[in-house]
C-alpha cells in the first residue's frame, strides 16, 4: 500500500522536553486520519514538523514513497500540504477573496486581477457547499465561516493533504456538524485529511483511522470502526478514564453569592444581561447553561468587576460588592477561572511562579514593605505545581507561554482554588482540554464544592452541565428562562430552553 505521506521516526526536542519521540505516521490517499492525544502529547508539534514550521532532529518525511525535505511552509505548500490552524491566520480587514489569494495573487502588469480568482473560489465554494461570500469582510463573518475561508485557502492552492488543527474547538455544535460533512466530501474527492483532536465523538463520526500519541510517544494506529471510545481514551491517557463525574448529593447551606436584579448594558443594543437574579449557596455547583453569546460573558464580567453594571446588586457573603474594584472582590473571596485563559488568566511571558502568585503577591507572605520575596514565591509555586500536577519543562521557572493548554488551565485553577475563595466562578473551565484534564478539573470542582465553596459554573457543553451541576439556570438573550434540576431533566429539554423555544417563569 502506497502512502501519500509517511512521517518516519520523527523526533523533535525543545528545551527541557521531548515533544516528539520517534513518532511514525502514515496517511493513505483519501482517508481521514485522526491524530489523537492529550494536551501536550505532541500533536501540534508533529503537524508543525510536517508543515515546515519546525525541523525535526531525527526522522524523515516521505511523500508517495519519496523522501522530501520540508524547510518552511512554502515548501509544504509546494508539496500540496495545507493547514487550518487552531487560531486562524486571516487578515481581518480584508475581504474573504483577498484573504484566499493572499500570497498567490494573479497580477497583470503589476496590477491585481481578481476575476479569475473569484471564478475559481466561487466554483470551489459551490462544489463543497461552503456558501462563502467573496466580498464579505473577515471581521464581519462568523468563526465558522472564517474556518471555511481557511479551507478555501487550501483548496485554492490545490492542496491535497489537508491538516485540521483542532478545528472544532471554536465551533458551535451546528457548525461542527457542517464541518464534518465538508470533511467527508473532501475525502470523497480524494483529498487526504489529518484531523487533530481530542474529542472522541468526532473521531468516531468521521475518521477512518486514528494514530494515538501520549506524552510525545507513539502509542499506536487503530481502525476507528473496530475500536471503542473507551479503548481509544485508554490509549490516549494511559489508564481507564471515568466519563461520569462521581459526586455525592450536594448539601447546600448558607447563601454566599446573591445576585439581585442585575442588568448589564451593551453598546447601542438591548441590555446584555437583563434583570437577572439568582443565588449560589455554600456547597453547591450552580450552572448557567446557554448557547454562546446569550449574555454569559457579560454576566461574568459584571460579577468579577471587569465591566460595570447598570443596575442591581451583587452580594458576596453578606457584603455588597456591586461597585467594588476587581482587587476588592478578589480579596473578599471571589475566585474567577476566566473564559479566555490567554487574555485574562495568565501573563504569558511571566514565569509560572509569577503567574501562580498573581493573586497573592501583595499579601504579607510575599510582600515586605513593597519588596517581593521571589524565593518564597518560587517555593509556593513549587508546592502548587506538585499538588495540582501542573506539568512544564522547567517547573516554576517555565514561561507560561510555552506550556500546553491543559497545564495552563491547571495552573489557573491551582491559583484560584488555593486562594481560598468563598465563591468560585468557573467559565468553561474545560474548553479545549483532553479527557484526562477534564476529568481532573471536574473532580477538583466537586472537591471544592464539598469543601464548602459556592461554585458558579458557566458552560456551553451540555454533558458538562448535566454531569457536574446541582442546579441548572438556563440563560437566553440575557435572561434566566428556567431553573432545572439535572436529575429531573433531559438534554433534549435543556436544549429547548437554551434555544429559547421554551420558557418558564422563574421567581
Amino acid at each position, binding site marked *: 500500500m502506497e502512502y501519500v505521506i509517511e512521517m518516519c521516526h520523527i523526533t523533535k*526536542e525543545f*528545551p527541557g522536553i521531548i515533544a516528539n519521540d520517534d513518532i511514525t505516521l502514515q496517511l493513505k490517499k483519501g482517508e481521514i486520519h485522526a491524530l489523537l492525544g492529550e494536551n501536550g502529547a505532541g500533536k501540534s508539534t508533529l503537524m508543525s514538523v510536517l508543515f515546515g514550521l519546525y525541523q525535526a532532529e531525527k526522522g524523515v518525511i516521505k511523500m508517495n514513497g519519496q523522501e522530501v525535505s520540508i524547510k518552511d511552509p512554502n515548501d509544504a505548500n509546494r508539496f500540496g500540504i495545507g493547514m487550518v490552524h487552531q487560531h486562524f491566520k486571516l487578515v481581518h480587514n480584508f475581504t474573504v477573496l483577498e484573504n484566499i489569494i493572499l500570497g498567490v495573487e494573479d497580477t497583470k502588469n503589476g496590477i491585481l486581477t481578481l476575476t479569475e480568482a473569484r471564478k475559481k473560489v466561487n466554483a470551489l465554494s459551490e462544489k463543497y457547499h461552503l456558501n462563502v461570500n467573496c466580498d464579505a469582510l473577515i471581521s464581519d463573518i462568523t468563526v465558522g465561516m472564517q474556518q471555511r475561508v481557511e479551507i478555501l485557502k487550501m483548496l485554492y492552492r490545490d492542496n491535497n493533504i489537508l491538516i485540521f488543527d483542532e478545528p472544532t474547538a471554536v465551533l458551535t455544535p451546528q457548525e461542527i456538524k457542517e464541518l464534518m460533512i465538508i470533511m467527508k466530501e473532501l475525502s470523497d474527492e480524494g483529498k487526504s485529511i489529518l484531523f487533530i483532536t481530542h474529542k472522541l465523538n468526532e473521531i468516531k463520526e468521521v475518521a477512518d483511522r486514528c494514530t494515538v500519541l501520549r506524552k510525545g510517544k507513539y502509542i499506536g494506529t487503530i481502525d476507528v470502526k473496530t475500536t471503542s471510545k473507551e479503548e481509544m481514551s485508554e490509549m490516549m491517557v494511559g489508564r481507564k478514564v471515568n466519563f461520569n463525574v462521581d459526586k455525592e448529593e450536594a448539601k447546600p447551606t448558607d447563601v454566599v453569592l446573591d445576585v439581585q436584579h442585575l442588568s448589564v448594558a451593551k453598546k447601542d443594543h438591548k441590555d446584555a444581561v437583563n434583570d437577572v437574579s439568582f443565588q449560589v449557596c455554600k456547597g453547591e455547583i450552580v450552572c448557567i447553561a446557554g448557547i454562546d453569546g446569550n449574555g454569559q460573558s457579560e454576566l461574568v464580567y459584571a460579577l468579577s468587576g471587569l465591566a460595570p453594571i447598570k443596575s442591581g446588586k451583587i452580594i458576596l457573603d453578606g457584603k455588597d460588592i456591586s461597585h467594588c474594584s*476587581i482587587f476588592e472582590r478578589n480579596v473578599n473571596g471571589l475566585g474567577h477561572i476566566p473564559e479566555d485563559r490567554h487574555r485574562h488568566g*495568565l501573563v504569558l511571558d511571566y514565569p509560572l511562579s509569577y503567574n501562580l502568585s*498573581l493573586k497573592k503577591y501583595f499579601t504579607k507572605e510575599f510582600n515586605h514593605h513593597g519588596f517581593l520575596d521571589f524565593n518564597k514565591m518560587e517555593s509556593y509555586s513549587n508546592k502548587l505545581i506538585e499538588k495540582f500536577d501542573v506539568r512544564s519543562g522547567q517547573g516554576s521557572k517555565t514561561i507560561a507561554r510555552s506550556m500546553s493548554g491543559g497545564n495552563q488551565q491547571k495552573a489557573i485553577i491551582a491559583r484560584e482554588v488555593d486562594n481560598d475563595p468563598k465563591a468560585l466562578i468557573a467559565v468553561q473551565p474545560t474548553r479545549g482540554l483532553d479527557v484526562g484534564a477534564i476529568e481532573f478539573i471536574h473532580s477538583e470542582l466537586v472537591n471544592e464544592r464539598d469543601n464548602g465553596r459556592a461554585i458558579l459554573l458557566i458552560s456551553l457543553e451540555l454533558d458538562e452541565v448535566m454531569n457536574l451541576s446541582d442546579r441548572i439556570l438556563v440563560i437566553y438573550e440575557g435572561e434566566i428562562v428556567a431553573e432545572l434540576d439535572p436529575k429531573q431533566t433531559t438534554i433534549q429539554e435543556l436544549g429547548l430552553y437554551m434555544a429559547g423555544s421554551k420558557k418558564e417563569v422563574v421567581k
Partner: protein
Amino acid sequence: MKKWLSTDGFRNFISSCVAIAIGLVFGLIIIVFTNPSNALAGFLNLLVGPLEMGMMGIGRVLFYAIPIIMTGLSVGFAFKTGLFNIGTPGQFITGAFAAVYVGVHWTFLPAEIHWLVALLAAFIVGGLWAVVPGLMKAYFNVNEVISSIMMNYIGMYLVNYMVKLTVFDEMRSQSLPVATSAEIPKMGLDQIFRGSTLNAGIIIAILMVVLIYVILNKTKFGFEMKACGLNADAARYAGINEKKNIIMAMVIAGALAGLGGGLVYLSGSGKFISIVEVLAPEGFNGISVALLGLSNPIGIFFSGIFISYLTVGGNLMQQFGFIPEIVDIIISAIIYCSALSLMIKIFLNKRKANKKNKIKEVKE
C-alpha cells in the same frame, strides 16, 4: 562559572558585543569611502582616542554619558511596562528649564541644597510633562507615541517662550547662567579625571540605574508594572489597577528624562538653553541607548557609556578632516548595526541548540 556563562544575561552581553563589532566594521567601511587617506588614523582615533587622552578622556565620556543614560533609562523603563516613551525630548527640555529657573531665581535657598532643589524641580516637571500622554493612554486609549510626540513640540516651544520670559540672556540669545550654588558639586571628580568637567551627576545617574533596576526586579510596584506591560488584560483581571500603573509608568519615565535635562544644564560647564527650534537630541538618543541596552537598566548604563565614547571619539576624528556630519553618520551606522544584537542573540541560541544535539548524537 559554567552556569554563569550559559545564563541569559551573559548571552545578551555577548550578542551586544558581537553586534557592536559588526557596527564598527561597518563604520570603518564608511570611513574608508569618505576619506581613504586618513581612514585608518581616523578610525583608530574613534576606537582608542578617548582612552589615549587618559583620565581626561574617560571623564569626558562619563560626562557625555550622563544625559543619555537618563533618557535611556526613561525609554527603557517605559518599554518594560509596555509603553513607548518617545516624548523624552520634551520631558528632557522642560526638566532642564525647571532646573535653570530654580537655579537662576531661587537664590534665597541655602547653598547646600540649592542644586538639589533645582534637580528635584527638573525631576518633577519632567514627570508632569509625561502626565498628559499617560492620562490619555489610560483613560482614552490614545497611543502614547502620538501624544508624547506632540508634547515634544509643545515642550520645545513653551520652553523657548518661558526662557525668553524669565531667564533670558539677550546678549547671547540663551538662558542666563545659574547661580554657582545651583551647580552640581564636582566632588573632586574633576580632579580625578583632570581636564574634564565631570561632576556628581554621574553618581546620580548610577544611583538612578540601581534604583530603576531594584524597582523593576525586586518590588511589588515593578511586578505590577511589568505585568501591565506584558498583558494589561490579565493584570486587570488579577486586580491590578492598570490605569494607575500606566500613568505612574509614564510619570516615572518622564521624571527620569527631566532629571537628565537638569543634570546637563546645571553642570556649570557652558551649557545653556538656546532659543532654537530643534528637539533635544539627548531625548531621541535615549531610544538607541535603551534598545542597545535591551531595556535592562544595567545594560542601559553600559550602552550609554558606549555611545558617549563613540561621540567623544568621533569628535576627535574631526582633526583628521572628517566633518561633523560624516562623524554623525558613522556613529549612527555603528549604533544601527549594534541594535541588531537581538538578531545575533537568536543566532547564538540556535547555534547552542545545534551544538547540544551534536553532543547528544556523539554520545549515542
